[in-house]
């Protein structure tokens, strides 16, 4: 177990290094992948671990992005302070909405999560004087990281900065995932009735998980605001929530590295397909998702196991 987690971390670090040298002209895109990985990781905590069905994770992402952007413009341009502000904003929105949302499940919950993100978008749209409305929030100029590295034109600093934040979040969630709290979230996911019978307030556990996930989504939003130096209404969009969900399902839920793998695969395929055929690229994405959902219901991380079972003639891949 320990060896495996080290090797997973090693492979990911190697991939980050290799990508940096192999695709020096695509750093902006690669940086975007890191930001999405953080958002999808937050979704894995909320959905993969705690089983909270949400289609509105972008709400906390947007809150983090706007909060960090406004903070950088009006208060302090330090990047790490911005991340903290983004995390607090995301967690605060998750806490306020979660008090109501975490009492619901299923379809009701999904509809409410969508509604929260829509409300966020509408508030950002209406408060034009503060947020820039549909034009987006401009003029974000983060200062040097640790007073040393300036955000450069090519995006080298941004790349490693985003990589470091993603690695930190991944490490943090790996620890939490193995903790008693992480185990209790899996318990809440698998059998809420039993958790109540054990003497646990399921509502409280779900709320804590939702707030944590909100904080991490807020970090992703803040990172996006600092690196693109712009926050648009798109940060609250339903498309973003839905794509994050597809990336997570593609990679496999409840395992963290599935979130990372799914994000990389989805965004790379998206990138290549959209470049080759700007009109029909969605077909490629659709085909990919269909194939994975039908052939590998546990996501791409289950590919080695499924192949092994297939070669043994066992047709029942475990879900």
């Amino acid at each position, binding site marked *: 177990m320990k060896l495996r987690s080290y090797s997973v971390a090693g492979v990911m670090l190697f991939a980050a290094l290799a990508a940096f040298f192999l695709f020096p002209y695509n750093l902006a895109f690669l940086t975007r992948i890191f930001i999405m990985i953080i958002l999808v990781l937050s979704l894995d905590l909320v959905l993969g671990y705690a089983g909270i069905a949400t289609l509105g994770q972008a709400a906390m992402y947007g809150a983090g992005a706007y909060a960090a952007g406004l903070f950088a413009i009006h208060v302090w341009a330090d990047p790490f302070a911005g991340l903290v502000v983004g995390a607090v904003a995301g967690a605060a929105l998750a806490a306020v909405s979660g008090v109501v949302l975490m009492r619901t499940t299923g379809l009701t919950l999904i509809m409410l999560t969508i509604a929260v993100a829509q409300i966020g978008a509408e508030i950002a749209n209406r408060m034009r004087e503060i947020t820039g409305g549909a034009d987006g929030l401009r003029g974000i100029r983060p200062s040097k990281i640790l007073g040393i590295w300036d955000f450069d034109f090519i995006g080298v600093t941004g790349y490693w900065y985003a990589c470091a934040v993603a690695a930190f979040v991944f490490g943090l969630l790996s620890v939490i995932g193995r*903790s008693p709290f992480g*185990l*209790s979230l899996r318990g809440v996911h698998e059998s809420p009735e039993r958790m109540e019978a054990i*003497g*646990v307030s399921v509502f409280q556990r779900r709320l804590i998980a939702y707030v944590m996930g909100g904080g991490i989504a807020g970090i992703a939003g803040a990172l996006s605001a600092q690196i693109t130096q712009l926050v648009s209404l798109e940060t609250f969009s339903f498309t973003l929530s839905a794509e994050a969900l597809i990336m997570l399902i593609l990679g496999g839920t409840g395992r963290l590295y599935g979130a990372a793998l799914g994000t990389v695969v989805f965004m790379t395929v998206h990138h290549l397909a959209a470049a080759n055929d700007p009109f029909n690229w969605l077909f490629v994405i659709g085909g990919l998702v269909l194939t994975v959902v039908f052939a590998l219901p546990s996501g791409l991380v289950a590919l080695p196991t499924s192949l092994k079972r297939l070669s043994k003639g066992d047709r029942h891949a475990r879900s």
Partner: protein
Amino acid sequence: MQGLEVRGLSKHFGGLVVSENIDFDLPAGARKALIGPNGAGKSTFANLITGILRPSAGTIRFDGQDIGSLKEAQRVQMGIAKTFQITTLFPQLTVRENLRLPILERQGLGRRLFMRADSNRSVEAEVSALVDQFALGSLADRPVLDLAYGQQRLVEMALSLALKPKVLILDEPAAGVPSSETHLIIDAIERLPDDLAVLVIEHDMDLVFRIARSIVVLVQGRILTEGTPQEIATNAKVRELYLGGSHG
């Protein structure tokens, strides 16, 4: 009094009376069984004691304290645990992980973020003790969904026992278990701690007569009679109820 003390307990769902003026005692160390035909209100009675349902009238005392207004989770913390009639486990988690969860919660470690779930020595010692007590050693690291149904029922009991309850209500512990595996359940019940108050709700008369020192017969929400297994076996009304009922 140590243990459970129920007086005048009633439950109505609208005009439907499912429990009517029940007096019931379950002192520490008791081995009681609750029997009765389908629809007699056995599960309702269990749910009233554990706090899943609220009584319409009557009192429930535990160790002298009125617990009638406490929630399910609070009653669990006081020491009243119940197994589920339909197995309610964490199917994807291993047997050890299933048992670890309630122990971590009982020891107040359930919200810790920065320790490994399997790193606490006293928790792991308890997990291993339960695994041994229920003879689950060879299956301990398998996901529960891989286990046979009788074995899952054992995990179900172990999970409730992990809460270190003073009162354990076993809701049909042998339901759905093939008769070849029933002895596993009976053995496990016989090995329960002596000071634990045990109430078994069960259809399987063989199991009831093997375990119970006292049997309560519930019919249409009322207690028909209570007595030792011999008294119940020879009770004319009970015989009529069971023999007459199954043929009519």
